[in-house]
C-alpha cells in the first residue's frame, strides 16, 4: 500500500512538473512557478500527514 502511494505521488509530481515546464515555455513564468510550488507541496505533504502518523 505504502509503496503504491509513493509511486502514485511521484507520478503525479512528474506529471505536474512536466506541465509546469510547458507553461514556462509558453512564457507564463508566474503560472509555472505556482504549479511547481503545488507539485513540491504534493511531493512533501504525504511525508508529514501520512507517513508520520
Amino acid at each position, binding site marked *: 500500500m505504502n509503496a503504491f502511494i509513493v509511486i502514485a505521488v511521484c*507520478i503525479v509530481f*512528474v*506529471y*505536474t*512538473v*512536466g*506541465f509546469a*515546464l*510547458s507553461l514556462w515555455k509558453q512564457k507564463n513564468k508566474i503560472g509555472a512557478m505556482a504549479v511547481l510550488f503545488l507539485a513540491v507541496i504534493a511531493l512533501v505533504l504525504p511525508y508529514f500527514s501520512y507517513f508520520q502518523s
Partner: protein
Amino acid sequence: MFKVLKKLAGKKRNKRPVGSEDTLASQASTKDQSISYQIEDNIKQVKKIFHYPDNKDIKLRECKIGASEKRVAIFFISTITDVRTIEDSAIGPILKNKHPDATIKEMIATQNITHLSTMRDVVQNMNTGNAVIFIEGETSAYAFECANFQGRSVEKAENEVVIKGPKEAFTEKVVVNLSLIRKRIKNEDLMAETVTISTRSKNEVFILYIRNLANEKLVDNIKNRLKNLDVDAIQNLSLLEQYIEERPFSMFPSVLYSERPDRATSFLEDGHIILLMDNSPDSLILPATFWSFFHTSDDHYLRFIFGNFARFIRAGAMFITIFISAIFIAVTTYHSEMIPADLLLAIAGSREKVPFPVFFEILLMEIAFELIREAGLRVPNPMGPTIGIVGALILGQAAVEANIISPIVIIVVALSGLTSFTISDVSLNFALRIIRFIFIFSAGLFGIFGMTSFFVMGIFYLTSLKSFGVPFLAPMSPHYVASGDTIFRRVLKNENLRPGYLKPKDMKKKSDEAVK
C-alpha cells in the same frame, strides 16, 4: 511528463506503414492515357489493363457497323452485366445498321449513353458493370448502362424485429436500398450523393440527406471526413463505421446501424444523414444519440401507452442487466443488512454448502452465460436453440445439484442474461454486457461505494461524449428543443419538432393545422 507522453503517443501514430511500395501507382499510370485514334491500340490497352484473356469474365466483342463498315469493339465484364441488354440494344442494332452516317448514339437503344475520353473512365465504367464501345477512328469511347450485380432480393428484417409495421429490410444492393428509401420519401430534395472512399477497391458511399432539412455544416463535415479517408478498401458499412467514428476506444457506439429502411427514413426526416453502401444490408445513421440506440421502431408503431410500456420495460431491463449481478454481490458481501430477514437467511442457508465466494460464483456463471451465448451464435442454425437449452437448463440445474452454485445465483445470472436481450442494438448490447462485468468487479471490490464511483464516472463520461458534434445524451442533457422522445415518447401529435441538436433548417415537423 504529459509532454513526453504526448510525444510518445504521437510517435506511435505517425509511424509509416512498412513496405508501402505502391503497386497502385503503376496501376494508375497505365490508366492515365487518353483514348487513341487507332482502335487497335485501344483494344490492346484495355486487354492489358484487364489481363484479357487470363481474366475469364472479361468479354470482348468485335464487329463492324452494318453500313459504314467501321470496326467496333465492345468490352464488358460478363458476370456483372446483363448480357441480354448488350445483345439486344447494342450488338444487334450495330450489325443491322443501314445508314452510313448514323452516330453511335443513334444506333444504340439503351436509356443512356455516355461519352468517355480517358482510359481511366473506361476502366471505371467497366468495373461498375457498364459496357464500353470503341469505334474505329474516334478518340472517344462510349459507355451504356447494363449493370446487373447479383444479390438477394428484399427480405424480412432479422435483427430489428417489429410486431407492427413494415417488415422489409435493406439488402446488399445499394440501388435496391435507395429505392426502398425513395419509396418512402417522394421528394426531389432527398439527395443521394456519392463519394468514393477507397483507392483500390473504389468503394462508393451514398450520402443521403434531405436538402432543405439537414444542416449543411453537418453534411459538409461528414463529406469531408469521408473524402479524407485514405484506405485501400472498405468493404461495407460496418467497417466504414469504425473508420469514421471519433473515439475508436469508446465503449459506446457513436453511429447507429440499422437494417430497417423505415427507421432510416424517419431519421432522414428528422434531419439526420444516412450512409448507404453496396454490400451492406443496412444503413449508417449519424449523428446518433444514446436514445436512438435505446429506441426501436416498434415504440412508435405501437400506440402511445403500449409503446411507452415497452420503453419502460426496456429501461428496467437495461438497469437490471447492468446492475443486478453487481448489486447481488455488493449486497451479499458488503451490505447484508439491507436484505429482508427471510431472504437473508435463505441466501445464507443456501450458501453453506457452496465452495466459492459470491463474487467468484457470479463471475463463473456470467462467463458461462456469455460462453453459451457466443456458442449459440456461432453454431450452425438448427443447433442453436438446442445449445441454449442444454447450456442454460442442464448446466444450471446440474451445478445447483452438485452444490457448486447456489440456486439464487442462477436466478440472478439468468435474469441479467435474459434482460440483456431486450436491447436490440448490437453495439449497445455489447457495451452493456461489458459494463456489467466492470460493475461486477467494482461491486466485488468496494460494494455499493465502488459501484457508485464507477457509475458516476460513467455518467461523466457519457455526458462528455459527442457524436459528430452532438452530445451523446442530447436532448435530455444538455437540453435542446426537441420532440421529447427520450426515455418515454409523447403522443405522436405532440412530437412536432425536429431535434434541435442537429440544428435543422426547419424545426417544425408539422404545421399547426395538421395537428388539429
